[in-house]
């Protein structure tokens, strides 16, 4: 399936690359910066706001947490009530971290 899907994508690109006209000009190929001359480019150390890194890290942490939750959820009914307390402890510990980032203002987007 993945192959087919990607195949379609590639096909489309190739076809249009063949069929499409090629009349490039500097102005056309200039990156859009509201008319200013563009500067920088890929990998020329553009700085991202550090906030995005924070979000990424939080995502990693919480996503792993979700990943831990899935097996528990699937096996849940075979393990009650033990699994419930397990999950409770887990979530509580998670909430500690959540409270921390909350108070730290990581989730504030000014």
């Amino acid at each position, binding site marked *: 399936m993945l192959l087919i899907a990607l195949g379609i994508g590639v096909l489309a690109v190739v076809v249009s690359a063949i069929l499409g006209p090629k009349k490039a000009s500097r102005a056309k190929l200039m990156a859009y910066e509201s008319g200013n001359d563009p500067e920088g480019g890929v990998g020329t*150390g553009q700085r991202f706001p*550090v906030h995005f*890194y924070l979000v*990424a*890290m939080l995502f*990693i*942490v919480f*996503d*792993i947490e979700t*990943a*831990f939750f899935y*097996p528990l959820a699937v096996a849940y009914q075979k393990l009650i009530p033990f699994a419930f307390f397990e999950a409770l402890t887990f979530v509580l510990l998670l909430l500690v971290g959540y409270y921390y980032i909350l108070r730290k203002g990581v989730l504030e987007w000014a």
Partner: protein
Amino acid sequence: MVPTTYYIALSGILFALGMIGVLTRRTAIMVFLSVELMLNASNIALVAFARSWGDLTGQTAVFIVMTLAAAEVAIGLAIIIAIFRKRETTNVDDLATLKG
């Protein structure tokens, strides 16, 4: 049913690549990525062995290792960013304040 040795060979290759990366690359990010590669190599090995022994502890271990990897990513990126924002470089050789 692919024999276990193939998986082990694969993980070995991955691990070796990671090791080479650690030893040769000079930017912290690349070293760091190589380490992640090594971690995944051990994940593969764990899963393969778990299958060959037919018990699940290996698989659960993989979960743990994944978590460790994630935690390392979080902290490692934090440190690397902290340094990068201060001195515009993450080249390990440039970090020579502590000599001797």
